[in-house]
């Protein structure tokens, strides 16, 4: 490993020394980490052991395990100390926090240096590394918000958002049903299906292809969410107007991608189909549609994000008193920022799961594609 890889443990050592020797509380110089009871000693010893292990043998399994334990303990203990020092955290608190973070960074470096693996171990690594990053992002957020006493209306700590999320599950579920299960799913299905069908139709007419494709490309770049007020005027306040916005915004990406995909098959393969005396439909189903699958799934993935965005923005223009976009805009007005964040967490989860499901189906449907062959 290069010299930079070794820098973090030494920095962490300095941090650990500072955490042990400096006061925890800037108001109370007598409060030190070693006097916080036996648990503090467990944390200190775990950190020191992990650091010694990682400096002696950077890539050993032992170093990885010790680092994981020490980083987890350090993060947990920082959060334990947090309420008692909120607003007047001393240098040792920050040193402990930074040391834990450096340990987690070392852990990520150790894990990232493991050569790429397949099977269960590889999948585990691919999930664990970003997970550590995500959890630490949340810890940093919580510590900074609480330690500096950032006003609640500005950014609430993740713990408060989590609590709000759990206490208001019925409201969130109703919003989810209104926006996602009704508007997004219906609009997504209609928009993608009609884009696909129109693409197949204009595929037979090269003139239409040349005329529609540039227009489709142009429309894909336009701010389509702007049609939301018009759709609300046409289809009323309830979910059909949101579904209509979703239909329009998913239609063009699907159209453009399918047309491009249908043109993607090699002339050689098409000639082969002709020597088999295959007719148009046989060529379409046996050669050109399979070749177009990666493009179609690309559109499906783009659309899964677009659909949720379109539905939520459309709700800013008028809705019945339920729905994710409605909740976000009203709760912002009432300064219930924790509720807004809870709604955003639900939207993020829904969007990621939607995208993930489409990606999984893609994997199953286009397993033959070079990008999935290992």
């Amino acid at each position, binding site marked *: 490993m290069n010299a930079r890889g070794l820098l973090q443990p030494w920095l962490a050592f300095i941090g650990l020394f500072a955490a042990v020797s400096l006061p925890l509380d800037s108001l109370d110089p007598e409060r030190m980490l070693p006097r916080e009871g036996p648990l503090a000693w467990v944390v200190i010893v775990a950190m020191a052991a992990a650091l010694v292990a990682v400096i002696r043998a950077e890539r050993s399994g032992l170093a990885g395990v010790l680092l994981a334990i020490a980083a987890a303990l350090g993060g947990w203990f920082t959060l334990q100390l947090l309420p008692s020092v909120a607003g007047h955290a001393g240098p040792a608190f920050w040193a402990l926090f930074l040391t834990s973070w450096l340990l987690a960074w070392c852990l990520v470096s150790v894990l990232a240096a493991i050569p790429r693996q397949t099977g269960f171990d590889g999948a585990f690594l691919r999930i664990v590394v970003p997970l550590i990053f995500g959890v630490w992002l949340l810890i940093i957020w919580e510590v900074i918000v609480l330690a500096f006493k950032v006003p609640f209306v500005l950014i609430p700590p993740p713990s408060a958002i989590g609590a709000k999320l759990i206490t208001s599950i019925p409201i969130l579920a109703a919003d989810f049903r209104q926006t996602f299960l009704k508007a997004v799913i219906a609009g997504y299905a209609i928009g993608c299906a009609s884009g696909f069908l129109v693409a197949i139709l204009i595929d037979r007419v090269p003139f239409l292809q040349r005329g529609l494709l540039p*227009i489709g490309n142009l429309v894909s770049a336009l701010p389509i969410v702007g049609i939301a007020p018009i759709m609300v005027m046409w289809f009323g306040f309830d979910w059909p107007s949101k579904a209509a916005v979703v239909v329009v915004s998913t239609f063009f990406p699907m159209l453009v991608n399918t047309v491009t995909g249908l043109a993607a098959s090699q002339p050689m393969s098409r000639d082969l189909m002709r020597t088999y005396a295959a007719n148009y439909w046989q060529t379409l189903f046996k050669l050109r549609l399979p070749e177009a699958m990666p493009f179609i799934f690309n559109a499906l993935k783009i659309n899964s994000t677009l659909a949720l965005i379109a539905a939520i923005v459309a709700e800013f223009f008028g809705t019945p008193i339920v729905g994710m976009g409605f909740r976000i805009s009203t709760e912002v007005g009432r300064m219930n920022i924790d509720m*807004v964040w809870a709604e955003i967490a639900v939207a993020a989860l829904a969007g990621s799961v939607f995208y993930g499901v489409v990606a999984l189906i893609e994997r199953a449907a286009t397993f033959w594609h070079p990008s999935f062959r290992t």
Partner: protein
Amino acid sequence: MTAIAAKSPALRKPRSLKKPGILFPVLIVSLALLAVWYVGAYFLNAQLARDQFARQKKEPTAQELVAATWAMDRPLLPAPHQVAVELWKTTVDQSVTSKRSLVYHSWITLSSTLAGFVSGTLLGILLAIGIVHVSSLDKSLMPWIVASQTIPIVAIAPMIVVVGYNLMNGQMGLSTDLSRFIAKAMISTYLSFFPVTVGLVKGLRSPDPIHLDLMRTYSASRAQTFWKLRLPAAMPYLFTSMQVAIAISLVGAIVGELPTGASAGIGARLLAGSYYGQTVQIWAALLAASILAALLVWMVSLGGRAVVKRMGMAR
């Protein structure tokens, strides 16, 4: 080039027959869409027009009915020429600084779009360079950047706008307009960094392994490899993703105008039009936004073509 072209006009002709331009088909399709629009306007507005005639106790002829559906005050779907007239009235007939001028509103939106686009592109470039060069960043940050795309980012827009606006206007004492401008630019930044990062990472990794090996045989440093090989190879990718980024940052600026009750900007025009049922105004604002988007994307693609050509990579 010209000499060859002059020598063999016969060679050029079949090629132009084989690969006809797209101008004519696009024109025909656009005209067809306009016709569909007119027909749609008739059918959507027919009921309203009939009601109007019924109130005046008049039996309209077919011709009168059609004319009425295309010239209504608050139609369900305004005819194209009504939108064009409204667009003309609010751009050319008004002074540019007037609050009724669409040029003024477009500028308000455009300024935060551009600010957001520039900072988002810079952020995206920095992240991409970090991801390509630091492997722990690649493994830990990249999945989150990809995940952030699946999140309906626009959903956060009202909160960023309201919170950022309150912070800057209330606590930092910035002026109302400036706070709103920065809040909108923040959303545009957030939306536009993503395509740039993903595209540039792809581009910086696009050089052939053979070329990277060649740089190693030259014993080139990381910085030299970056400036002389990776960055030039990434240029086409960068500009393609910048086209996506500028389009999406315009969307971000428009959406950012919805929740603060902003009185200026294309988004504010849309919202006001929807409150007061001014359909023609909505359509004119929409058309203005579309023209703006097309112009911005076109300009980025022109810039991209110029840079790529200057680097000798134009095909």
